């Protein structure tokens, strides 16, 4: 993917660009708002990573300008530690996701992949059947089967599995699960998510030979039917 990184802090920018390259992406870089906005309007990108505070127009202004001119490239906003308040402002300005510094590279990659997938498939809501290997989910009937056997899931487990299946093959972090499945933005003090995932895993993987839900150490979880 071609990804534009607009970040004035050199260390952070280096870190992001390196991580993106290692993950096989093709990052471009701007260290101020003016150049960033210029690049974003003149070239095609699959996603933008925009720091909130920038010399020149700030991150929110850039995104607002792009959205006003009909540019819908998915944008992830970066902000400094503790600026909890800004998340809503960022999303209101037209940002698609929000990440607080410092962050793990895996978190950034997972979110970028989820972002591009989300906007790539615009017919996602029309989908009624998702399948990953022998695991099938019928969204209309709210039924899940694996290898033809019906699996009984609680509503929340169903949502959790749906999110994992929609992002099949990519890593989803615990924060992403909290935000997307539970729809709350907060810091869990204990590993509440892990317990939910292991519960789901019991139902999905326990009686079968191959595991679908995998833990990615230091990052989160991934659902896939074949080894990478």
């Amino acid at each position, binding site marked *: 993917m071609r990804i534009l990184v607009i970040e004035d802090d050199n260390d952070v920018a280096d870190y992001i660009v390196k991580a993106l390259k290692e993950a096989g992406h093709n990052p471009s870089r701007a260290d101020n708002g003016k150049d960033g906005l210029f690049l974003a309007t003149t070239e095609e990108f699959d996603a933008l990573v925009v720091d909130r505070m920038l010399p020149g127009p700030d991150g929110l202004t850039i995104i607002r300008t792009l959205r006003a001119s009909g540019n819908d490239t998915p944008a992830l906003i970066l902000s400094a*530690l*503790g600026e909890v308040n800004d998340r809503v402002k960022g999303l209101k300005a037209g940002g698609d996701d929000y990440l607080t510094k410092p962050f793990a590279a895996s978190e950034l990659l997972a979110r970028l992949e989820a972002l591009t997938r989300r906007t790539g498939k615009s017919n996602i809501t029309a989908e009624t059947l998702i399948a990953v290997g022998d695991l099938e989910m019928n969204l209309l009937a709210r039924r899940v089967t694996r290898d033809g056997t019906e699996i009984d899931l609680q509503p929340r487990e169903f949502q959790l599995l749906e999110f994992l299946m929609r992002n099949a093959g990519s890593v989803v972090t615990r924060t992403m699960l909290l935000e997307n499945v*539970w729809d*709350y933005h907060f*810091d*869990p*003090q204990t590993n*509440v998510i892990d*317990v939910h995932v292991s519960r789901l895993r019991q139902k999905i993987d326990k009686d079968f030979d191959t595991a679908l839900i995998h833990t990615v150490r*230091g990052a989160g979880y991934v659902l896939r039917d074949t080894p990478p």
Partner: protein
Amino acid sequence: MTAFPLFRSATFRLALLYMLLFGGSAAILMGFLYWATAGVLSDQIDETIQADIKGLAEQYEQRGTPGIAAVISERVRRDPGGRTVYLLTDPLRRPLVGNLSAWPTLEPDSDGWLTFDLLDRDTADGTTHIARARPFILQGGLNLLVGREVREIERIRAMVLNAVIWGTGFTLALGFAGGIAMSRSTARRIDSINQTSRQIVDGNLDRRIPTRGTNDEFDQLAANLNAMLDRNQTLLEGLRHVSDNIAHDLRTPLARLRGKLDEIDRPNLTDDDRNRIVESAIAEADGLLAIFNALLRIAQIEAGGRRENFAPMDLAEVVSDVAELYEPVALVKGITLAVRCEPTTGLTGDRDLLFQAVANLADNAIKYTPEGSNVVLHAAGTVVTVSDTGHGIPEDAKEDVFRRFHRLEESRNTPGSGLGLSLVRAVATLHGGKVQLEDNRPGLKAILSIG
């Protein structure tokens, strides 16, 4: 710096101003008095002279020159002291009758009045007094001069002037003294405030401004300043406490992090071992970041800066979501988590923060209750109660646990930052509510009321 340190004192300047105002108004009053008294007196004299002229002119018309001469002679005879001036001359100003030997040589002023020195006929030493006279030309061309010596007016004038000067002087002195006395008492009160301030600046933080108990403006000022100082001291102590604890509580994880980074360099490590160490170092750093993040969040919430996310919300929904999220964790620990939600009144709030607050209470309840106990989440109206059947906490610690980094001795070994309840309290305060801990007999009951 002025050369005159006295001028820098507000007391002195105030006294001076007081004196000038007071003395100035007295001087104006006295001046007016002088002007009015003297004016009335000379007006009276002038009127008398004019009436006299009129009377003599009538005499002349009725009885001719002999008549008027007789009247003038009679009047001169009746006034041996010479307080009056009469002189009748022929058209060439040669004296015919009167008590003035010659017509005065000076010209009358624009109003037709002559003012000249008149010899005192009572004494022989040549003393003169001022006299005021008015010339008048009779029908036959005769010149008539009628006047009065104005010694009395001069005397009264001098007396009044004297009174004015002394009076003004006294008033100025009194004004200055009064000004000093008045501003001294003000200055003393201000001085005591100044002294206390200086002592506080010098480090005696518990000094307070004395009050007199009169409840006047100065007492109120002192009371307000004292209240402000009290508040500052509380905040300062809280801050000191927090920074002490930050230093103390962050040292341990930082030391662990350092130890782990040290370990990576050890020879004979398998790749797996090394990976594990790196991962636990990252986890340690994440934990530290989480503590900082929580601190910043609490600070931000306490500053009231998160109200913009307020929206109408359902408290019961938040509580049942928390219960749903934590129920598996409780189950793993062998704790029964129950939730009871009564219909809650619609309220405006930040659902993410309230979720965080209720989650922190639930998390604490699950973490600090032994296996086999019960945790109940209950929502009714605008009140959320989280109760457990664990060991509870001692009565005297129920306020301390809300302080940042405060952890009870027996919980030092459980994971946690000691910030959870501080955040709950900050969230409650942001919503205009409060949180308190009560005895659940047995166990602990946390009551979070919003608004």
